[in-house]
């Protein structure tokens, strides 16, 4: 076995003259991949209130509540649902988005927002009405 002292020496000195690999993150935004699973966002206009998301969520992060029940002129019942998402519990697994049966567009989706840091857990309880 050849023992070459400082096999790294050239590499190390080369880096002195190279631009460091560091990104200046909070001061320069970086790009995130399109598939990033960030915060779950719900659209009350689309939700049909099936509670599949609530049932499948592994982290008890979703609570769906019925807000109102109105009868339209043609006799159909129209219900409106609100949702609480506890971002401090969410595991960002995306199961809620996957299971949501609302058509033609899912009522709950994970967006690309990930800078959630907060000083208070209350701020992480997000209500969609």
């Amino acid at each position: 076995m050849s023992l070459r002292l400082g096999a790294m020496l050239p590499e190390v000195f080369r880096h002195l003259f190279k631009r460091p690999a560091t990104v200046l993150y909070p001061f320069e935004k970086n790009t995130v991949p399109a598939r990033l699973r960030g915060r779950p966002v719900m659209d009350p206009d689309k939700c049909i209130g099936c509670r599949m998301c609530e049932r499948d969520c592994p982290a008890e992060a979703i609570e769906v509540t019925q807000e109102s029940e109105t009868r339209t002129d043609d006799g159909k019942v129209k219900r409106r649902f609100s949702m609480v998402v506890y971002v401090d519990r969410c595991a960002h697994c995306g199961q809620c988005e996957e299971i949501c049966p609302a058509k033609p567009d899912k009522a709950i989706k994970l967006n690309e927002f990930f800078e959630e840091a907060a000083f208070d857990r209350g701020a992480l309880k997000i209500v969609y009405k």
Partner: protein
Amino acid sequence: MALEKLVKWSRVSSPWLLHFNSGSCNGCDIEIVAALMPRYDLERFGALLKASPRHADVLVCTGPVTRQQADRLKRIYDQMAEPKFVVAVGSCACSGEVFRGLYNCMGGIDSVIPVNAYIPGCAARPDAILDGVAKLLAALKKG
């Protein structure tokens, strides 16, 4: 005044971290280490990872706090010198996440010691951690 300002400035400029795993899945621990690595380089803010609780200012915790670790978490916290801050990294450190209700988890760092900042995410990305640290420092600078 002047002195106070200087001290405050020094505190904000030199946050030394102590990392504590209270029973997490390692995911966030790896991301904390990744935040110290060349790509994100937390040392830009003057942050250094320290091994002794006596040297550290910020306790960076991960994990849903297992019963076994709860005691130790508290002890480490007590060993740190004032002023000290606690940051909970990862959803499971914030609230217990998927481990909520398991018989051996307390569910979140704040069930054991007071927490100054929460960084949810599973795993919290290194940039989310950076963002959290920057927010905490900015808040300290102000108040």
